[in-house]
């Protein structure tokens, strides 16, 4: 029994294969490039399985990140994964891309804060804490203005590890808000690892959590601009009328 994980939620495109019986990570590969996930994901998986001497029918479980991140990237991963799962009749597990990135800080004593730039000075983020490898979501995953987020984190009065390639854009602000409590990941810790995704999915499977359904959809963490504008307009009209 082997689990194939794939992640295209951010610039990182990652795939890994995990053996569910021997609990061994058979392989992992990730790139961190501005290259087209749509073109590369399927050939990469194809080649990766060849490298591992595996055939597609030896893959018994799948895992994918459900977002947040790049809308298009998330959809490529989710569509690919759920279509393979349906065609091969194998279970699919999903995990948040922020939780996968947070795994890089699992030995950190304090809050682990993964983040992706959501533009207009906002971030996709959340705060996690690990207790002997067990992940606890301390602040829910959300899209939030950076200054408001830093205020909340500063109020928690504990060391905070910021993870992700986008963190550098906010480094000064973070240091100003958190002072000595601000910690930063290494370049290796700043990219989400597909092996971590596989491991999180394995835990769901081993704890008998139900896999995703055919109508499984990404979790973008925010409405489209058109939808939120429409809702604003409705509320305004509701107040006026």
């Amino acid at each position, binding site marked *: 029994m082997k689990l194939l994980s794939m992640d295209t939620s951010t610039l990182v495109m990652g795939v890994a294969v995990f053996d569910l019986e021997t609990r061994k990570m058979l392989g992992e590969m990730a790139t961190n490039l501005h290259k*087209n996930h*749509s*073109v*590369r*994901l*399927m*050939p990469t*998986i*194809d080649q990766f399985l060849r490298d591992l001497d595996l055939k*597609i029918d030896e893959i018994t479980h799948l895992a994918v990140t459900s977002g947040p991140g790049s*809308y*298009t990237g998330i*959809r*490529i991963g*989710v*569509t*690919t*994964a*759920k*279509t*393979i799962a*349906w*065609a*091969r009749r194998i279970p699919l597990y999903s995990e948040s891309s922020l939780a996968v990135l947070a795994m890089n800080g699992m030995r950190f004593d304090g809050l682990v804060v993964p983040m992706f730039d959501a533009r207009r000075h906002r971030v996709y983020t959340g705060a996690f804490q690990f207790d002997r490898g067990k992940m606890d979501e301390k602040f829910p995953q959300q899209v939030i203005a950076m200054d408001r987020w830093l205020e909340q984190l500063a109020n928690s009065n504990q060391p905070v590890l910021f993870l992700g390639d986008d963190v550098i854009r906010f480094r000064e602000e973070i240091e100003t808000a958190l002072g000595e409590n601000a910690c930063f990941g290494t370049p290796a810790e700043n990219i989400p690892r597909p092996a971590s995704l596989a491991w999180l999915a394995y835990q769901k499977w081993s704890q008998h959590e139900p896999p995703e359904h*055919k*109508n499984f*959809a*990404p979790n*973008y963490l925010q409405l*489209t*601009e*058109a*939808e939120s504008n*429409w809702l604003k307009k409705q509320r305004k009209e509701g107040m006026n009328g």
Partner: protein
Amino acid sequence: MKKNSNETLILGIETSCDETSAAVVQNGTKILSNVISSQIDVHRKFGGVVPEVASRRHVERITLIIQKALEDAETCLEEVDAIAVTKGPGLVGALLIGVSAAKALAFATGKPLVPVHHIAGHIYANHLVKPLTFPLVALVVSGGHTELIYMTRHNQFERLGKTRDDAAGEAFDKVARLMKLPYPGGPQIDRLAIQGEPRYQLPRAWLETDSLDFSFSGLKSAVMNLVNKARQRGEEINYTDLACSFQMAVLDVLVEKSIRAVKKTKVKHLLLAGGVSANSSLRIRLTERARQEGIELGIPPLELCTDNAAMIAAAGTYQFLDGKHADLSLNADANFSLVE
């Protein structure tokens, strides 16, 4: 259903705009299933298709739609010979869902992957009614396209003319919006036009004498100017008559240029294709004119005029038989060209 060895069974997938569709077509001509999930109700409140909203809906629905297409056809993935998918043109984010799903299916099953041009699909909608007879000319009119295509055999397309600015359907939608008609505007204008008189003088862009190209932006601007001037002067505009005048201006050019293209290429067969071919006046006028000229005209039934995967599977069948397959690096192409 177990199929015969001499049969070709193609699964088609289409997600180029706001319809999520999957279909199974036998031997390129027979529709075994054609499942279409329209998002029209989702986009109506925005007054038009919002690409990000469309992509999100496609991703939710795609697997269910593919499964239903196979179930309705009483077949299964194993029985299918190839997976045909719209590569473009269209909204790139929307196209990517179909392309990603098709690639995943090809990878999971080892079946060939066939990339199909959306316009080729519209032309082949006719093939599902009556097999294409070559040579032929096809008038393709939709929200994104206005083209005259010449074909001498399957899978070969030559462009005789195309729009230099707006597509005919786009002009319909923009004018409808100006007239504050609900989305989608094309059918609304068609409905009004039938009740109106062509009282307003509007231009027809014939372009150069021998040109088979189209142009609708001038017409659209003329309608806008007419409405704005009337508003400034406080004059009442008769929208029913305006719809009639506008539609007549569009159809005059579409019909005349189609006939010119047929005469120029000396073919006997003319096909109508694309979303605007649902326009009732266009169907009537082209039928009438083709009859006068002794041209055999093919018009798809209304349900095959709008975007659907059966037409993609039909066009894909001949590409599959010609060995025109794609590998797993296939990408969506918003500006994919029909003519190589």
